């Protein structure tokens, strides 16, 4: 026994014991109105901090923590310890890694040419689209007008012209030597 009276930790323990005495009743009620003892709350505290309690337990623990400063303090310490794990572990990877992985992703999932074309079409400058759309019939007309005459048109042109007339034909003129059959 300390002659100067209880130390801080002893006072803390005594206060927790008193608190336990106050809350030593078993669980009272059921469902949403259930009240927990400190021991019951302590048993659920780890599940609660990990977010693994069911709806009833979660509200019961929350209600108990709101009314019991000792358990609330214990819960805060537990949460701080576990949050410390997260803080001590998370670490930013080097920026080059992000670029490398993104390149891999771009190779595998990069947009196809159809998607790119569609994206271009959907650009937030609608006048481009309107102008382009209005130009399409004009371009078709120009293309049709300037099209060079095809084979059919040429044939038609030939059939329309009169057959060539044979003039100055004289059957008595002897054939030239190169025209004679061998």
């Amino acid at each position: 026994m300390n002659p100067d009276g209880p130390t801080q930790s002893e006072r803390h323990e005594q206060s927790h014991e008193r608190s336990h005495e106050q809350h030593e009743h078993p669980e009272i009620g059921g469902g949403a109105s259930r009240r927990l003892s400190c021991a019951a709350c302590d048993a659920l505290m780890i599940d609660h901090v990990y977010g693994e309690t069911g709806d009833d337990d979660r509200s019961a623990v929350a209600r108990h923590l709101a009314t019991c400063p000792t358990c609330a303090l214990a819960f805060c310490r537990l949460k701080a310890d576990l949050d410390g794990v997260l803080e001590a572990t998370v670490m930013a990877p080097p920026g080059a890694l992000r670029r490398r992985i993104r390149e891999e992703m771009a190779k595998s999932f990069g947009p196809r040419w159809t998607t790119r074309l569609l994206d271009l079409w959907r650009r937030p400058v609608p006048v481009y689209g309107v102008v382009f759309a209005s130009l399409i019939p004009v371009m078709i007309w120009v293309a049709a007008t300037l099209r060079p005459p095809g084979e059919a048109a040429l044939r038609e042109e030939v059939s329309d012209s009169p057959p060539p007339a044979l003039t100055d034909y004289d059957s008595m003129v002897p054939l030239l030597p190169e025209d004679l059959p061998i």
Partner: protein
Amino acid sequence: MSADHNRCADEELVRILRGGDLSAFDVLYGRYDRRLYGYVRRLIKDPCTAEDLFQEIFVTVLRDRTYDPSRGRFAAWLFMVARNRCLAELRQRKTREGLADEVRARWQPTAALSPERAVGDASRVQAAMSALPDGQRQLILLKQIGELTYREIATLLGVAEGTIKSRLHAATVAFRRLLSEGSPET
């Protein structure tokens, strides 16, 4: 586009990415880069190997289509792949190096003297985590860093959910005891 993606669930982002929208990758990467890299670094101490593994895990899960969004949470799958890859790497390394590691470890300075160990809470937490047995450390990391549920961890380790719950309770109590006492390493 990216602002919309920020509200999307991970599984939806994976679908969008596979549809060809790379901005979904940026959001996914931003959500998991620090946690996953920290997790890998915690298991694989060598930074170069950890970087390679980090890249491999991300690419495996996203590009190689090992993950099917309709079959579960992305985080659970990502950390499952990460854990398996890290353990495989550790096994390979153990086989490769064997005795050489032990000899080197004897000649290395103690962890407490390492310049990486800053004075403060982070080093105390790291020391306490390092002092935990492998299984307990894995559980706490999967829960706190991976944010996996008891059920997901149980599926990953192939044990009952109740077993995971009791093991995680024991691990948490052991970790807090080491943290308050000061682990043997410090």
